């Protein structure tokens, strides 16, 4: 606490520098890339430019999402390829605890976000995997969780109807929300309620009678304890007719699964589900306060395209509301970590030990307040700034950025100081402008410059040679100040 209070002279000229030699993208390109990737790097800008602009890039991302390019990325955690029974048995036998496998899963997700050449697929998977949330730390769910995530990702840019049918019959979801073992004598309502409230039509749009009928229609699912496979107990299934939000079924078959799937398809195509999904998509990709007119239009696109997600995204990106929303979304804790690794150009490689950087990504996000897919309730993590703009996150984020700015934490996998520097000597204000362009793909401001001057004690007009401390031992301080700018937090 005894550090001296050191002050720069009071009336310095903080006119921002200008270093146009370091090119930056147009504002619309920056906006689209920022919103639909996990961090805009010079390489991503070059890719979008080569594709013919941001809209062409976006279209290619939708069209080629499953071309195999992203398949091998971060396929570094072999336990994620094991069957549920193997994961379970190895946990029981003390070979590898299940929680470690689940951490693998989160780490793989984050590694993909850092490295994947298909960030739009990862963004939409992020949204839908939270919409159909099954926490990685759910009781007895974990053996099924990697496969569940694979299912979501494989369907994220397909039709929501198919995704819902797959997810709501997956052992992970059925187990998590207690549909496994639910019987006609005492139907368990947990999954039934969340199907209506969270996955489809939304709160306020269903009755308690709808919940009860849905719960009865869902009865019968079981897990075979020998094989770990999903089975069905005909004797436990309730065969009374159901009427749910306009869906009616005689439900006469002792095997209720076909009728259940009919309900799922009906719900996926319900106008209220369309509105709910459109709202979620707008909140994630446009703004926290979703414009009603845009939601209406996207809901109509969703229904007109048989619940396909990609046409909704196309319409969103083409909208005036999207164009007007630059800078309005806050990165969540995981995005904070991923963006840091991307803009500091981490050379992330296959992990070899428990403390390899790729194995520390989940912890990094957790330390900022939340690791992906650990949200404790079935609504999935929030997508709005109100949840993540907390004093606790602010403190944790400052602490992380200070460490990352050394370019040696958690290991020296980042670009070196030299690779961040333009030809020197250069006025400090121009150096700051160059670095701001490299990190944020936009010119610096007077506020940024002054923050950098205060942090480093360097005069804005000072000539920075290659021998100057601010590009030597003091570079971490300068980089740290830059990482803590408001621009960092905007997606």
């Amino acid at each position, binding site marked *: 606490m005894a550090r001296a209070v050191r002050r720069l002279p009071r009336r310095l000229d903080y006119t921002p520098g200008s270093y146009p030699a370091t090119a930056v993208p147009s504002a619309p390109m920056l906006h689209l890339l920022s919103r639909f990737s996990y961090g805009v790097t010079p390489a991503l800008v070059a890719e979008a430019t080569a594709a013919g602009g941001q809209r062409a890039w976006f279209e290619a991302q939708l069209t080629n999402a499953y071309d195999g390019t992203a398949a091998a990325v971060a396929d570094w955690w072999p336990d994620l390829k094991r069957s549920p029974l193997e994961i379970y048995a190895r946990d029981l036998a003390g070979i590898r605890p299940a929680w470690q496998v689940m951490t693998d899963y989160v780490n793989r997700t984050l590694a993909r976000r850092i490295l994947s050449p298909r960030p739009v697929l990862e963004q939409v998977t992020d949204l839908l995997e939270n919409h159909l949330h099954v926490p990685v730390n759910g009781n007895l769910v974990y053996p099924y969780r990697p496969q569940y995530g694979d299912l979501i990702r494989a369907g994220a840019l397909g039709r929501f109807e198919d995704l819902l049918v797959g997810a709501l019959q997956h052992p992970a979801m059925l187990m998590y929300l207690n549909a496994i073992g639910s019987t006609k004598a005492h139907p368990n309502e947990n999954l039934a309620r969340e199907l209506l409230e969270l996955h489809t039509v939304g709160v306020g749009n269903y009755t308690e009678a709808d919940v009860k009928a849905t719960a009865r229609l869902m009865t019968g699912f079981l897990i075979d304890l020998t094989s770990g496979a999903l089975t069905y107990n005909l004797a436990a299934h309730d065969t009374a007719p159901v009427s749910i939000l306009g869906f009616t079924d005689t439900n006469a078959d002792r095997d209720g699964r076909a009728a259940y799937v009919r309900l799922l398809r009906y719900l996926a195509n319900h106008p209220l589900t369309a509105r709910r999904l459109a709202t979620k998509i707008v909140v994630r990709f446009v703004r926290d306060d979703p414009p009603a007119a845009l939601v209406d239009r996207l809901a109509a696109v969703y229904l007109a395209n048989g619940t396909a997600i990609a046409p909704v995204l196309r319409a969103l990106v083409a909208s005036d509301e999207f164009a007007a929303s630059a800078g309005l979304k806050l990165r969540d804790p995981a995005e904070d970590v991923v963006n840091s690794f991307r803009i500091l150009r981490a050379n992330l490689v296959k992990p070899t030990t428990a403390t390899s950087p790729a194995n520390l990504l989940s912890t990094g996000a957790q330390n900022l307040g*939340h690791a992906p897919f650990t949200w404790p309730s079935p609504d999935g993590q929030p997508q709005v700034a109100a*949840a993540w703009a*907390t004093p606790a996150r602010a403190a944790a984020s400052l602490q992380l950025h200070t460490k990352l700015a050394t370019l040696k934490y958690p290991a020296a996998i980042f670009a070196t100081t030299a690779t961040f520097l333009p030809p020197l000597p250069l006025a400090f204000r121009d150096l700051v402008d160059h670095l701001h362009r490299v990190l944020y793909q936009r010119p610096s401001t007077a506020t940024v410059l002054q923050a*950098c001057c*205060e942090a480093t004690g360097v005069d804005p007009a000072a000539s920075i040679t290659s021998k100057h401390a601010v590009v030597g031992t003091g570079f971490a*301080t300068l980089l740290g100040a830059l990482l803590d700018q408001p621009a960092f937090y905007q997606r």
Partner: protein
Amino acid sequence: MMTTDEACCPEMRAMSRRGVLQGAALLGASATIGSAVVTIAGAAPAAAASTLGTGTIVVLSLRGAADGLSLVVPHGDAAYYAARPTIAIPKTSLLAADSFFGLHPKLAPLLPLWNAGTLAAVHATGLPVANRSHFAAMEQLEDADPGSAARVGWLNRMIGTDTDTSPLQGLALGSLVPTSLQGPEGALSMPSLADSLAGDPAYAPGTPRTVSLGCAWSKDSSPMATAMRSTLAATPKLATALTQPDRTSTYGGSDLGAALATVARVIKAGIGVSAVTVDQGDWDMHTDLGTLTKGRMLANAGDLATAIAAFFADLGTLASNVTLVTISEFGRRVAENSNAGLDHGWGNVMFVAGAGVKGGKYYGTWPGLTNSLDADLTVTTDYRSVLAEIVAARTTASTATVFPGFSPTTVGVMRTA
């Protein structure tokens, strides 16, 4: 040309100067940092109490909807036993039993508080109309202002009724700020003191980093800016909590225990914390709620009781300044389901402990239980009546402001101020 004062923040420099003078007992100096104002008073801790009152209200949320019928068992209601063939708790196992109610045996650590008359239970409380959605119910419960679309929590309104705008007046233990504390009044959140910036010399007042951050964030209008300013403003005061002994090891090892141990240190530091929120999760027991030998209720109830008992023991004489209340978004059904669990119901129990509590007693109006698949514990006491009684007894806040449009009924659980 931009000059210092145009481009950046004279406020942060001002705070820095005052921060440096903090040790010299500069009484009542305050500095505005954006929307957050930190008042730095170098007087003894007791004098740092807010104008809302000298005490602290701790709201402990049992997330996921706890089963109040297991925590405070209505052994005098035959329908309870009929509806729960597997999971009912025998009367002979209950603690602090009167002719109708008794406590879950895992709540044994709370008996000293109960017997000392500083712990009470209010049964059949909740929302006036059943809401079985966890998320919607939590929002409604914590917003507690059904007439307004604004997302402002009742605790935020409470700390907004005085002139103190320190972000430390409201404190959320955890990374997130719950709805009850959200709103225009600044509030702090932190998972633990170790996770805060307090104690890191880089963030002491007047350091280059602190001044730089002030530049970067003082004029930004994004949601993150408010959070940054609150953290930076609270850090110097929070550092004093670090000087209080850490007694986490006496709290039983649960996350809840660690959180309450942190709360105790902050309260002992006397830095004007009026409202605290703490969460305990994992109460959504659709399956395996269990019996007295196995299941999920045992550990949860045990952690709850151990942590609360340790909290009041740790507070020592300051316990007479702290009131803790538990709340859960709704209760659970009367009848167990096919998985030895309970689906979403309605009414629940609230525990009230500490300062001002007329304890050792069960409060509320019992509605009588029914043994049917859909039966709830009917709410007979609006949860706001319990909270309003605490607010009235322990603060200067107007309950009409904290709970707009609501007319509380008398519960009698608190001594009037």
